[in-house]
């Protein structure tokens, strides 16, 4: 930021309302202006009005997106948890308060999902609040951090697969409404795989994912962690024909010890050549 800009007083901050509404501030100015907004009701009201004006410029640009984008987004939605801690923490600071609001998100209309008891109610938690949460639940802070790190890494991997130009989605649904889905990129050799409706196997057993190839033993791609948390599979060979899930003893097996409970063909997503 230039010296004159730093020396400018509070009065001049008001003049940034229009550039702010047009997303025309540099990052440092944006942060400074957003700080100011929190304590200035008049500015906040003005920014809201100017932002509504700016949005009118967007209405005239609508254009139909590529058809394949719909499948990719909808498949990604099935594989992506909502309001998970790390994702929100990464994105929230970049967003203007008039967009996201300064209040915590409204109460959910449905009970938070079981698989994410720690993160759902604390989606907007600060680092300090996360520590309080950790002590409340008698969870060691570093364990919580590990979880956050793991989820953040997973969010990055999902974004990576999604961004591949040849990313395609496929799903299988049985008559009882249980489903298996994958977003896969043959060029990257990666896939995000989801299971839904199968519940947790009894007796501490686990759902294990296998890569099926012609003339080769099934290769383990990992264990599904909690309920319907997606699994990111890597190093998929192009010759792969399908993905299969079996129920295995705790810790998983080297080779499947039972028949697959569900299997998903990969031909439609560019594999099997």
């Amino acid at each position, binding site marked *: 930021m230039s010296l004159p800009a730093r020396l400018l007083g509070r009065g001049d901050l008001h003049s940034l309302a229009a550039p702010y509404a047009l997303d*025309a501030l540099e990052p440092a100015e944006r942060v400074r202006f957003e700080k100011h907004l929190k304590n200035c009701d008049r500015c906040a009201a003005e920014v809201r009005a100017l932002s509504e004006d700016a949005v009118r410029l967007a209405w005239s640009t*609508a254009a139909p997106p590529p058809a394949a984008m719909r499948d990719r987004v909808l498949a990604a939605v099935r594989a992506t948890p909502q309001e998970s801690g790390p*994702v929100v923490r990464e994105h929230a600071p970049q967003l203007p308060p008039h967009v996201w609001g300064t209040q915590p998100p409204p109460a959910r209309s449905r009970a938070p999902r079981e698989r994410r008891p720690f993160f759902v109610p604390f989606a907007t938690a600060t680092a300090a609040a996360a520590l309080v949460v950790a002590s409340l639940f008698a969870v060691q802070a570093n364990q919580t951090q590990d979880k956050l790190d793991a989820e953040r890494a997973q969010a990055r991997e999902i974004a990576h697969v999604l961004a591949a130009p040849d990313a395609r989605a496929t799903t299988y649904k049985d008559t009882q409404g249980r489903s298996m889905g994958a977003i896969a990129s043959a060029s990257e050799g990666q896939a995000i795989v989801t299971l839904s409706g199968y519940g947790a196997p009894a007796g501490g057993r686990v759902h294990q994912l296998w890569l099926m190839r012609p003339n080769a033993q099934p290769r383990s791609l990992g264990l599904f962690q909690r309920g319907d948390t997606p699994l990111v599979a890597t190093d998929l060979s192009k010759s792969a024909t399908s993905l299969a899930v079996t129920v295995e003893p705790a810790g998983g097996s080297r080779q499947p010890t039972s028949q697959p409970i569900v299997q998903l063909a990969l031909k439609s997503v560019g594999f099997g050549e």
Partner: protein
Amino acid sequence: MEADELLVLVAGGDQKAFEELYGLVSGPVFGLVRRVVRDPAQSEEVAQEVLLELWRSAARFDPGRGSALSWILTLAHRRAVDRVRSARAAVDREQREARRAHHPAFDQVTEEVEAGLEREWVRRCLDRLTALQRQSVTLAYYDGYTYREVAERLSLPLGTVKTRMRDGLTQLRKCLGGVA
């Protein structure tokens, strides 16, 4: 169903509602992102990210602060501008300086914007602005330039550009009136 109601259902984890919301907003989101980002492949990538972010963060939408469509398009615009700026930062700085010094790109920019507009009434209202108001607003909103960059391109003082942006937006509001 309107985007506002759908977004509330989406916040509750309703995937069917998200599909319906996608039908309503994917065109406006993609069109806006493509207008700012230009490159088709990158536009698709940014639009996808925005739509997925809607799913993840729907619970943060606060109906008391404006319409769902405004919220969504504001988010899309912010992401598009971020992308186009980081792409631009990669362009050789020297080359940029040289190009800037040569022509402030007055008419060219206006023409591009007008050709891309699909709706007569927005164009009509933009036409009613003074040239400097229109250029200040469109260089920022459609091309993703900061107000400092706009000032450089138009060879105007910073204060003038900020004022033109505000006046331009206010005039647009008056011209578009109650059209929603």
